[in-house]
């Protein structure tokens, strides 16, 4: 199974790990992105994530398909959250399970990087001083 979703509720990463479990898999890899308390030296109070949801879902689904073709990953899931997130909240979760470890480690990195590069998702950071700013990918949010 592969599954990609944009969600408006807190991400349950443990459920996603269960979802990719399969008795033929010996390795599971996961990545979580969380809201940090600072960005380029500014104190962050929260992030408002928004997305072009239908396209983000189809783009992430395509990325999972590419991961299957490149790494042989048959069990993978990705969820990206939208809405108002506080510091520490999970914004993205990627999980992949494979028979051996190299494939899932490589696949998770690929899926995370491709999603950050291609999925139409944006974040508006809120700072302690009350200001807000649209974050530009590449401006320190790796």
């Amino acid at each position: 199974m592969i599954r990609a979703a944009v969600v408006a509720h807190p991400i349950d990463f443990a459920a996603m790990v269960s979802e990719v479990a399969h008795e033929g898999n010996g390795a599971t890899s996961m990545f979580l992105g969380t809201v940090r308390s600072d960005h380029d030296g500014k104190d962050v109070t929260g992030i408002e994530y928004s997305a072009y949801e239908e396209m983000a879902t189809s783009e992430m689904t395509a990325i999972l398909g590419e991961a299957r073709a490149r790494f042989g990953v048959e069990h993978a899931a990705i969820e990206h959250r939208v809405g108002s997130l506080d510091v520490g909240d999970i914004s993205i979760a990627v999980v992949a399970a494979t028979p051996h470890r190299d494939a899932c480690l490589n696949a998770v990195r690929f899926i995370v990087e491709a999603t950050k590069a291609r999925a139409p998702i944006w974040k508006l950071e809120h700072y302690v001083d009350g200001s807000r700013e649209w974050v530009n990918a590449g401006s320190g949010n790796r």
Partner: protein
Amino acid sequence: MTVTVLLFASYADLLGRTTLGLDLPAGATVEHVLSEVRLLPGASLLPPSPLVAVNRSYALRTTMLSEGDEVALIPPVAGG
């Protein structure tokens, strides 16, 4: 023909709207949509070559449009 233009995030802020209906001549391309959008108040701050998606796939400026297409201007993405 009619196409729907979607605006998101910083572009929606710049233009003060998230959607726009456009009536275009047959054979119009993404370039035509961009030309129309640039006539809107606030559009001077759009980058010279914004990313565009047609029907939820990234598209070129030369991509031909059809009746009912959904054309989205995609600000620099920042997911993750």
